């Protein structure tokens, strides 16, 4: 997808090299830490109510502790990022965090964390988790680093979406090859499929992506077929049916 070549590049490097698929989130965190020049990175699951306690991956002990603190205390930049759907960029925890998060602030400072950049992993109403970057020295992200962190967040969104729904898809391969596509019709089609199949939006998006993968067509084309009512998803073995243009 021309839209986000960097996201495709990240996903390609994660699915390349074969090996155990379970290590993908770990590799994503490691590559993110290296590319963005931060001390550590963690990937955690979130629900509408807050942290679910699920830490998918963490590059090191401090990153893990950052997530555990937020789960235990129910507050922190990652909680705010997930709730508001916007990144929370805290280049100087010492100066800002103690007032904003009275319990979490001192906790992360004690763990040696001085800056946190939290990116919500959301696709509209689909709330998957957060990608949290930390530094052991204060300092903001440069414009390039911010851009790259956002690309890693998009890649992490794709990874989480498929990890969470692998069970429903009968252990099918996580289809990471396709890039993040945020064209309007993809989201409209997701909304339609959620009604057609009576499944969650996240699941509907996975089904849409899986169909694109299986038919080797761009997801935008499949989405346009759904929106124009040329294609319906159903619970048959084929998973969908072409509609008579009538």
């Amino acid at each position, binding site marked *: 997808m*021309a*839209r*986000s070549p*960097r*996201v495709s590049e990240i996903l390609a490097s994660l699915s390349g090299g074969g090996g155990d698929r379970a290590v993908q989130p770990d590799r994503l965190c490691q590559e993110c830490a290296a590319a963005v020049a931060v001390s550590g990175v963690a990937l955690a699951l979130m629900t509408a109510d807050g942290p679910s306690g699920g830490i998918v991956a963490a590059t090191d002990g401090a990153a893990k502790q950052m997530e555990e603190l937020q789960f235990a205390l129910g507050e922190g930049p990652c909680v705010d990022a997930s709730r*508001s*759907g*916007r*990144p*929370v*960029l805290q*280049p100087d925890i010492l100066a800002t965090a103690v007032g904003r998060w009275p319990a979490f602030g001192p906790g992360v400072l004690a763990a040696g964390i001085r800056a946190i950049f939290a990116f*919500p992993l*959301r*696709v*509209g*109403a*689909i709330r998957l988790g957060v990608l949290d970057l930390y530094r052991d020295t204060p300092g*903001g*992200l440069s*414009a390039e680093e*911010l*851009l790259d962190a*956002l*690309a890693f967040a*998009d890649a992490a969104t794709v990874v989480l979406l498929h990890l969470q729904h692998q069970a429903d898809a009968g252990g099918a391969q996580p289809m990471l090859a396709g890039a993040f596509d*945020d*064209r*309007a*019709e*993809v*989201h*409209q*089609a*997701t*909304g*339609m*499929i*959620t*009604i*057609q199949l009576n499944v969650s*939006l996240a699941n509907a998006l996975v089904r849409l992506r899986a169909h694109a993968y299986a038919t080797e067509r761009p997801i935008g084309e499949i989405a*346009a077929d759904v*929106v*124009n*009512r*040329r294609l319906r998803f159903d619970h048959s073995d084929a998973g969908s049916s072409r*509609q*008579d*243009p*009538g």
Partner: protein
Amino acid sequence: MSSREQLLARTFVELADTLVADFDLIDFLHLLARRSAELLDASAAGIMLSDQRGGLTVMASSTEEARLLELFELQNDEGPCLDCFRVGAPVEREDPQAMRSTWPVFTERMEELGFTSAQAIPLRLRADSIGALNIFRTGQGPMAADDLQIAQALADVATIGLLQERAVTAEDHLAEQLQAAMNSRILLEQAKGVVAERTGLQMDDAFQAMREYARVRELRLAHVAQRLIDGSVDVPLLLPRPGPPAEPGTQG
């Protein structure tokens, strides 16, 4: 006052009202897009924002027709919006021939949809441009100087709206703001899909039904979208009166 001056004055009053009330960015930008089309005697208008990933995303347009949305999205590859975003100044061409040679793919699609010219006005924030206001007209050539001034004023109001939810004091905060705006827009698209599937309406009509529901009840559009998705607002409630269900296969 001429009728246009009256409309202009009314538009700014209306936009100012929106800014101080319970604020919904997407709704605000839709209002702005619709009024821009009216004020500039244009066939359509839309607002595109930088998604902070090097792409431009359409946030609002005067109509939500798929064909028009496609014309915005196409400008991630070429078109006046992309150029305008890059140079931070208004972009247009003197005639259709010049448009075709600058943006061959975009211009062909634009002409297929019945437009003759397109202009892009930057959404400026200090030294940066953060997006563009896109105008589509059936008249040829550049916009009149006073039209261009009005267009820039409308684009500036769009930027103010974007910064409204939270004061922007640093570049980092702008990134946060844009991200939240993108998420609201995606939420809206998902809700349009839910409504379209439940009712058989086309996307544009599904969107109008949501807007009307939100307007009458003085609710935020994003709030209505969220409640439609989680099922706490039942879709049929959106429809003013029960009509015959649309037959599948007659759409698009």
